[in-house]
């Protein structure tokens, strides 16, 4: 009679195994990681959670001044502050997901070296804890929208705003996907870590955070929309501010790309996690 074993430890195989059921079993851990991130991030700071708001607010003010006033770029006839804030709130979520997950293996090497738990829990927890930041920033954004509507600015919320959860989900999948691909590769090649910070900066200029999609020539527009973050930002802004383009077809492509990147990342991640302790 063959005995039923709880686990069989064997050399890494090449078959794809996402082990998502294992991640589900450790859901309490994900929750605790999120709680840890949230409670510890701003301990011993004077302004505490206010930093969640200060960051996008200041970036918005700076962009309004430089790109709006000095350079005079088009904002689709929207109040400049709202236009830039709308782009920044979503972009910041994307870039936080990417940069903080890209350091998963190196940042947790000591812990990973001692004990096994599904490594995928760490990037997922990061995405969720960044989501809380996003939520707070999003509320601020809503406050600003309300303020401008009362002031009678040309702003109206459209039905596309109802798609926000899906837009955010796609952004998270893409951000985490890119992040874990990088984190898996940085275990061997450290140079990628250096590339992340300025790569993300360049990526921002390739997205419609500062320039509005409608102000571009058709060719440039298509190129920009092939960047999988762009349609999300464009739709997000169209939904909440009622102006701008609605690239649904490109958004569909973005979904496909995001899921593909995420799957690739998970596969790489799962392969690396078995041997990375020998290479880090």
């Amino acid at each position, binding site marked *: 009679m063959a*005995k039923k074993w709880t686990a069989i430890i064997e050399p890494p195989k090449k078959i794809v195994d996402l082990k998502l059921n294992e991640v589900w079993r450790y859901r309490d851990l994900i929750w605790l990681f999120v709680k840890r991130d949230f409670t510890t991030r701003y301990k011993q700071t004077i302004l505490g959670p206010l930093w969640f708001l200060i960051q996008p607010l200041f970036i918005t003010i700076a962009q309004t001044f430089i790109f709006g006033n000095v350079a005079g770029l088009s904002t689709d006839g929207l109040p400049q502050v709202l236009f830039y804030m709308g782009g920044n709130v979503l972009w910041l979520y994307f870039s936080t997901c990417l940069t903080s997950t890209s350091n998963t293996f190196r940042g947790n090497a000591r812990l990973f070296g*001692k004990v096994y738990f599904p490594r995928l829990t760490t990037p997922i927890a990061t995405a969720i804890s960044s989501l809380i930041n996003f939520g707070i920033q999003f509320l601020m954004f809503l406050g600003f929208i309300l303020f401008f509507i009362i002031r009678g600015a040309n702003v109206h919320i459209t039905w596309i705003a109802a798609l926000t959860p899906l837009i955010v989900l796609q952004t998270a999948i893409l951000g985490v996907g890119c992040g874990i691909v990088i984190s898996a590769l940085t275990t061997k090649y450290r140079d990628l870590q250096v590339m992340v910070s300025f790569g993300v900066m360049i990526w921002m200029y390739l997205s419609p955070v500062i320039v509005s999609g409608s102000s571009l020539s058709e060719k440039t527009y298509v190129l920009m929309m092939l960047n999988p973050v762009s349609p999300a930002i464009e739709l997000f802004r169209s939904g909440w501010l009622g102006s701008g383009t609605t690239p649904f077809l490109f958004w569909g492509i973005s979904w496909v790309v995001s899921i593909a990147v995420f799957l690739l990342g998970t596969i790489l991640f799962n392969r690396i996690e078995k041997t990375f302790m020998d290479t880090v």
Partner: protein
Amino acid sequence: MDEKDIAVKIVHLKKKYRLGVIGGRTLGGEIQSWFAKKRGKEDPNVQIGRDAVDTNESFWALDDINLVIKKGERLGIIGRNGAGKSTLLKIFSRVTAPTEGKIYVDGRVSSMLEVGTGFHEELTGRENVYLNGAILGMTRAEIDRKIEDIIEFSECRRFIDTPVKRYSSGMTVKLAFAISAFLDSDILVMDEVLAVGDVKFQQKCLGKMSDVSQDEGKTVLYVSHNMETIRQLCDRCIVLDRGKLIYDGEVEEAISIYADIKRGDIASFTDLRKAKRYRSVRLVRPASFVSVEFLGRKENLFKNSETVSVRIIIESELEYKDAKIRFGYNDIYERKAASSFCVDIGDIGQGKNELVLDACFDGLVGGSYRTEMVLFISNDFGSVREIDIIPEAFYFEITEDNKQFEWNTMRWGAVRLKDMSCRSRK
């Protein structure tokens, strides 16, 4: 044996490691090396004169381990540094994967974290219990049920809602251990975690481990260099040596075998013909060390005050004028401790040369040392040409004569210079 009683079955387990530099390379460097190899040139990224004995050689950290552990057994694992103990536990706790072979596990495995590895400084003791418990695989509901027991056992109740960064290291250890001790696991893996903490708490931990094993039928795998704790805790013991399982059975027997291997290391006669050479002299060397022997001894156990005679045999195809010998001593942390030279051996002739040197280890503090043997010549300008280099020629142990205090090698170094003397006092 009934299959039902088996907790762990290890079948032909092997783990291979590459020696030399692994990882930490840049993408650019890797491409550069690859191009150089394609064009048949020397790899520009290999350092010259590096200390690693070899670059692309691999070795088996574990070589064909087969083992069956029954439920409720408390298995001790002993062996020298580098014998493969930690590798075995790492594979077992799934931190790294085996190269070949399989381990069948029945039950939930939890490995004990090294002191507070998963602790977050800013979180309170209680929050850390939850976080750490979850890392070790417990659900929140399980921790809720056990939190009181954990706090009680850790003796940290008064500080449980204080951030861990305010804890003393002893308290951190206690809390970390308490979490692991109350895990709902069937198999507990421990790697010398008990080495820290005060003696009283250590005893409490060992007692707790025996209890959970006997009462709840938990299986324990325990690695340690401390034979006393092995005696206390384990009812079966295996000895690993160079990746192989060389003994499996009674604890006392295992401990005495372990002591034998350690002693074998310091046998006074060492044949050096097959010893591993440094890379630069591996293939071609006109002169080689043949053997080294400390005269009038069975083992290389020296007092640091005595002078001992050592016979070295060298075989040479060429003649060397004014050759010199260096012994380099490395301490157990693999740090270079000191070197001693013999500069008056004169010329080495063709054929067999037999030398007897007087060696003195004055200054080396107590402990075990690995000796590197180097035969070299130096020219008038003072530059050195090495003829034969054996990084791991022989081992010896130093005992100190009068110890006023315990020497802390980690912090004070391995050489104690001549004590200063107090000339006047007012």
